[in-house]
């Protein structure tokens, strides 16, 4: 039947709407009927879809050319790096955006980046969400997170049992420490799949 695990995410609904073949009243009404909880976003999307873009043939400005060149350079160089650590290259702004997107305090994400989370304590459902936000596969993310556990453990051994600042904590502990409310914690900890 229709379990919660099958409910599409907001992103999926909006993207599906965005690539519909016809963007008329009928389509918008259909989505508003079926997903009233996303009404604001659907109407905003409808506006974006009907926006007239002045598709001119102006030459690219020097800044635009620079942007394109920079993007290409990064694309070619980033290949191997992102294959190893999707969290490494995150700018402060991007980290903030992802935190907003996932509705979590930023420190939760930083903990992941600094490998202060016990990977096995993270529910698969959350890993998938985080991977999605990072535009990589869950497997890649899990692998990257696991690959540096060794150094974290070594440090906590040195502290002789006392909880060191860098020792890894469970995902749930991390959420509690970050002040994530109980209801939200329960949702994050559940493995819908």
């Amino acid at each position, binding site marked *: 039947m229709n379990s919660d695990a099958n409910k599409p995410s907001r992103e999926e609904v909006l993207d599906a709407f965005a*690539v519909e073949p016809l963007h008329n009243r009928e389509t918008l009404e259909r989505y508003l009927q079926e997903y009233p909880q996303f009404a604001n976003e659907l109407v905003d999307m409808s506006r974006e879809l009907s926006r007239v873009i002045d598709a001119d*043939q102006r030459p690219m400005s020097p800044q*635009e050319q620079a942007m394109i060149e920079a993007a290409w350079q*990064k*694309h070619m160089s980033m290949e191997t790096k992102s294959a190893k650590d999707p969290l490494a290259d995150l700018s402060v702004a991007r980290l903030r955006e992802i935190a907003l997107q996932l509705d979590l305090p930023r420190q939760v994400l930083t903990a992941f980046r600094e490998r202060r989370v016990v990977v096995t304590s993270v529910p698969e459902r959350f890993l998938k969400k985080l991977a999605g936000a990072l535009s990589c596969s869950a497997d890649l993310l899990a692998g990257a997170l696991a690959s540096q556990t060794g150094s974290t453990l070594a440090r906590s051994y040195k502290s002789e049992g006392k909880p060191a600042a860098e020792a890894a904590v469970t995902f749930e502990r991390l959420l509690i420490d970050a002040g994530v409310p109980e209801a939200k914690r329960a949702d994050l900890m559940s493995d819908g799949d």
Partner: protein
Amino acid sequence: MVTPLRKKTLAGESYTRDPKIEAKLVELEGLSRDELVARFQIRRRDDSGYMPSECLVYFVRACRADNSTTGFDRLYKILAERVLRSLPQAGNFDGKTASLTKSNISEKVFGRFVELLSADRSEYSEKLDYFEVRFDGALASLRRDAQEQAWRDENRSAPLEFDEETGDLSDEVERAAGSFDLFSAPEIDGSDYRLRLDAAIDALPPDQIRIIEMLRKGIPIDSKEAGAVTIAKALGKSEKTIRTHRDKALAALRVTMSGGER
């Protein structure tokens, strides 16, 4: 030979490309990189030789399997350029704040798109499938995303308040709002008018923008029919509130549009 898409629709089936796109991909598949680049170099959409961006995305992604960089940089840059051209320019039509917002949004969207492409190089990214289904739509989705963030940063997301004091607009404003039909003004065909109108709408509070959009689509403010989609229901406000804010929006637009150069 043409790799199928992986992303599933809301109904659970795999997305398929438009048959015309699929046909073009088959046609282009056998070409060398140089020939491909030549085909994609045509910029004008109304040119009969113009190759859709959906196809370009396919080939840029397909480079994943091929280590050679020959021609890849040119294909990539053509795609990047097309993305930039599809982003709203921070024009001279509106106030400073709106221009900054547009620049921020364009930068964010470009950055996000580039990021998606890069991620896809190491691991198939289903999100990019949307760009092969409908490039313009998928890009609009990135723009909306960026706009939501920008609004949040600017604190523009505050919901509609029904102002008790000025609850009923003066007769004059009602008349002004009603008599000026923004969307069928004689100059409507001029693209300059359209862009100015778009910019003017962009400057309104988000809920007013939504009311305008729904009105343009022909959705009624309220309805006697039980299950009908209405603006009031969608935005969760009373009919009266919606009307008031519609009138405010139209009045504001009228002022902006007639205040400009003739």
